[in-house]
């Protein structure tokens, strides 16, 4: 607040709470300073952990000819983490804003069930050779396309028209997910053990079996989608106030919601297909970033969410790989912490 403004306020005798109101993103310079410090801290920690992941405990010396391949191999995992952090942080924050609800995540909508359903039914209907051949960019885009198509059908059907209802859409999404799980479980029962093994290897996702061959296509998609969301920040600021307020402000509620949900669907499908499901990671990230960024402006929340997500993923992998030697359970532990945060937040809520 400028000095002139504050002088006028003090002359007019505004009370403190009113004076603190502002149309700017941060309430005070102190908040803004805290935001930038935290953002650089998280980014710094993330970069440090990344460097650690790439260079620490490298089995070959720097001057050896196999140093570069080792680094390249590790770089693939880091890029996968970067993509996962981008997708989950942006999609969860945007999703929570459009649903005006800070305790749900887009992973609820059954992307992973659909993913495992596609894989299982490919094997079930077309056999093992088809599943082995069902890889590469064509298959990748087919899957992502199917997931986006399903979300589009779901949104178009349940969100538009007279009966449009966000919660109903969510619930139907969850139920479709659990129904698909049952159907794939049913098909998996009918597979021979060798086919089942083949499938099992496909269904367990982690940053370490992310396929680098998809990167040239995935990275542009993710960057474009994420920047779209970022440029929609101002719209999101209004949409997060709810349907009535947003309409009053002249924002086309339904069209914008569907557009944003489609962007979210793109991000979620890409990350699920590339890395596999992470249910509570996005939740954890979004929750922490609301604490760290004391503003409702998405232009500031998004970067913070990304920084925190990247920092959590890289440092979790670094600590668990090189300090605790617990290789297999990284994603499980991230999920556990996300789940615990969810419980704490739920218990502190007064209204849902």
């Amino acid at each position: 607040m400028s000095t002139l403004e504050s002088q006028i306020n003090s002359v007019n005798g505004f009370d403190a709470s009113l004076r603190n109101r502002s149309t700017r993103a941060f309430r005070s310079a102190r908040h803004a300073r805290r935001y930038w410090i935290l953002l650089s801290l998280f980014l710094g920690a993330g970069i440090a952990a990344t460097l650690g992941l790439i260079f620490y405990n490298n089995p070959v010396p720097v001057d050896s000819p196999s140093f570069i391949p080792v680094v390249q191999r590790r770089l693939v995992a880091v890029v996968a983490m970067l993509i996962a952090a981008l997708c989950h942080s942006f999609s969860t924050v945007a999703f929570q804003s459009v649903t005006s609800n800070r305790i749900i995540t887009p992973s609820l909508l059954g992307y992973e069930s659909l993913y495992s359903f596609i894989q299982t039914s490919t094997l079930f209907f077309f056999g093992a050779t088809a599943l082995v051949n069902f890889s590469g960019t064509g298959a990748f885009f087919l899957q992502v396309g199917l997931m986006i198509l399903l979300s589009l059908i779901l949104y178009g059907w349940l969100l538009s028209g007279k009966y449009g209802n966000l919660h109903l859409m969510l619930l139907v999404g969850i139920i479709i997910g659990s129904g698909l799980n049952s159907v794939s479980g049913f098909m998996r029962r009918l597979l021979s053990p060798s086919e089942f093994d083949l499938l099992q290897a496909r269904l367990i996702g982690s940053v370490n079996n992310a396929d680098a061959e998809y990167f040239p296509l995935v990275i542009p998609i993710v960057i474009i989608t994420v920047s779209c969301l970022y440029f929609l920040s101002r719209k999101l600021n209004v949409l997060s106030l709810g349907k009535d307020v947003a309409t009053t402000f002249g924002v086309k509620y339904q069209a914008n919601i569907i557009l944003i949900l489609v962007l979210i669907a793109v991000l979620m499908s890409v990350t699920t297909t590339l890395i596999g499901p992470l249910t509570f990671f996005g939740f954890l990230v979004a929750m922490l970033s609301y604490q760290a960024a004391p503003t409702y402006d998405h232009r500031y929340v998004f970067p913070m969410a990304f920084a925190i997500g990247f920092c959590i993923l890289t440092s979790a992998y670094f600590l668990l790989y090189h300090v605790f030697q617990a290789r297999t359970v990284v994603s499980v532990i991230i999920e556990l912490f996300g789940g615990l945060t969810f419980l704490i937040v739920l218990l502190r809520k007064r209204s849902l």
Partner: protein
Amino acid sequence: MAMNVTGEVGNHSQPPFSKQKKLWTLPFILAVLVVLMLGVISLFTGAYDIFNNEHGKEMFFITRVPRTIALMLTGAAMSMTGLIMHLVTQNKMVEPTTIGTTEWAGLGLLTVYLLIPSPSLVLRMTGAIVFSFIGTMFFFLLLRRVRLRSSLIVPIMGMMLGAVISAFSTFVTLYFNMSQVIEGWFIGSFAPVQAGKYEYLWFIVIVTMIVFLYANRLTLAGLGEEVATTLGVNYNRLIILANALIAVTVGIVAAVIGNIPFLGLIVPNIISMIRGDDLRSNLPWVCVLGMGTITLCDIIARAVIMPFEVPVSLILGTVGAVVFILILLRQRKHRRLR
């Protein structure tokens, strides 16, 4: 709590108790007959030929009869717990699968396996019951504390809560290297049911009797704390009783059979669509339809890939999901849900 219910208790035009409808009407007798027929079909479905085998009769009484009885008891029990939950929470989308009770029961089983190596069935059951009780109480307390903006948020929350519990279970199984023990549990199947392994399900009969005795009071509890207290019902005691009944049923079924999804949701909803919301006169109907549904699903599960069989929970999960979505859409047409 009474304020935030957006029209979930739909039909207020129940007849007073003095003019209660007769139970043994023609449709009900027909329904019972159909269920009995399904039971008979279930008795004679299977890969083992009981007529032309030396031990046919023995096998019949060792596996087929217990299996059919187990089906009937489980079907009645799970749909009944659904009905009680709908009443007490005033929300028609609440049932053991949608509020995480099932996941809590799984965690209970896991805990027992952790504490005691190779536990007996009674111990496993106790663990499942205790944890289901904790889980259900937790959810109820949560529901009473928060102000709800939409009744649809309740199952969404419940399922996320269930996911948290199962994330925790996954962590525990991985940490203690027990995933094999618990692997098969979440897929409920009647295949291992045989004489000597299912008898605890008979406890469900006692639970059913208690529910019948308390039916009217539970209906009152469904009207909310203020109304129930005004009408002279100890609300808190009734809620604890309802939770205990739910926990005992879910715990027993979890330990003996496994996870039976969606039954408690679809059966009471279908019945209340047809008949309205009176617990006492609906209870027999809910039990009968529950028995019929699960028996039919189990017959399909056994017939579809003869001579093998698929777990009934997969069939029920698929059918249940479809029916649930249809119910949701139907409600949406009737009144705009908020």
